[in-house]
């Protein structure tokens, strides 16, 4: 982009940028924590390692993003303060990320829908006007590409597998589809980020997400469920009942023993 074009772009304020970074960071953090719950419970040793690796990637992304958010906020909160000392209504993750693991089909469908969103979002964020965010996106997009390969591979295996696996993955899709509305519906903050060049154009993410997910569904012999309007928005702090329980477990130690270290 030329310097002239950049100068006429409206600048997003620190408060908006902080809020937007929390959406990205919390989505990675909560999804990572969910997957970490599966450690030792994977359907096979190899899958256990795969899920754990993905959880670590996501938590790594969250650390970088929260640290950046803390610097932009400039109120002395570091990544740990933001991760462990906020309550559920202050979290800005997509509600899809906090949904329970359920059976393996449910875990895979949740990851698949989320991985596609993260992959397209970070791909786009590599060109963010927020320089440090672009750097984080460069690292994250490689991880997301693998996450998508993993989850979409399993979606196809389960969908195009046995009668039982097909039924389970179809049920999971029907259950979780309503949360995709939030992934693709842009609010004022998303629009503001797009205009200032910090975030991606919402229409672009929607189009690419749809293409990617529909192709995987077709290969998995699954029908795309009908659109469902979803009134609660995790990215605005309105969460399902599951987030509180997740946070209670995740935040217990640093709250019970402030300043604890290894």
């Amino acid at each position: 982009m030329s310097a002239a074009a950049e100068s006429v772009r409206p600048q997003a304020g620190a408060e908006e940028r902080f809020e937007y970074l929390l959406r990205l960071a919390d989505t990675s953090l909560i999804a990572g924590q969910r997957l970490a719950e599966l450690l030792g419970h994977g359907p096979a040793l190899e899958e256990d390692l795969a899920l754990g690796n993905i959880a670590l990637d996501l938590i790594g992304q969250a650390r970088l993003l929260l640290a950046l958010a803390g610097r932009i906020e400039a109120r002395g909160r570091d990544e740990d303060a933001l991760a462990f000392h906020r309550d559920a209504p202050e979290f800005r993750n997509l509600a899809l990320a906090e949904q329970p693991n359920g059976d393996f089909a449910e875990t895979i469908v949740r990851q698949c829908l989320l991985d596609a969103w993260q992959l397209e979002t970070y791909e786009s964020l590599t060109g963010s006007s927020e320089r440090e965010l672009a750097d984080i996106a460069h690292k994250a997009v490689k991880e997301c590409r693998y996450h998508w390969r993993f989850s979409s591979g399993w979606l196809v295996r389960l969908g195009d597998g046995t009668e039982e696996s097909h039924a389970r993955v179809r049920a999971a899709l029907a259950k979780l589809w309503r949360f995709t509305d939030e992934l693709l519906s842009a609010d004022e903050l998303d629009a503001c980020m797009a205009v200032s060049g910090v975030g991606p154009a919402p229409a672009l993410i929607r189009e690419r997400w749809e293409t990617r997910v529909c192709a995987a569904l077709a290969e998995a012999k699954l029908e795309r469920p009908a659109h469902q309007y979803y009134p609660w928005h995790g990215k605005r702090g309105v969460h399902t009942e599951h987030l509180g329980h997740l946070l209670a477990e995740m935040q217990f130690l640093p709250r019970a023993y402030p300043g604890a270290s290894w």
Partner: protein
Amino acid sequence: MNEDWVLYEVFIRSRSGLEHKHVGSLHAADARMAIEHARDTYTRRQEGVSIWVVRSSDIVASDPDEAEALFEPARDKVYRHPTFYSIPEEVKNI
């Protein structure tokens, strides 16, 4: 473990220019899954730049009962070892 999953042997190339080395085995439903499992199991600490997987059942192994016939005759032929050459310090990986 699902009975449909078969055993694969995993070979990792640690750096470009080096050979693939056997690192272990794992279970997977097919070759694609075997590559993913190998990546997640054996390259988590930057051990590799390339992965080979092969079904364990496709490997032809020598018969342990024939070990004497196969390997004993080499024992007294020390002149086959390239120990009479001096290798320059700078040459690695020999």
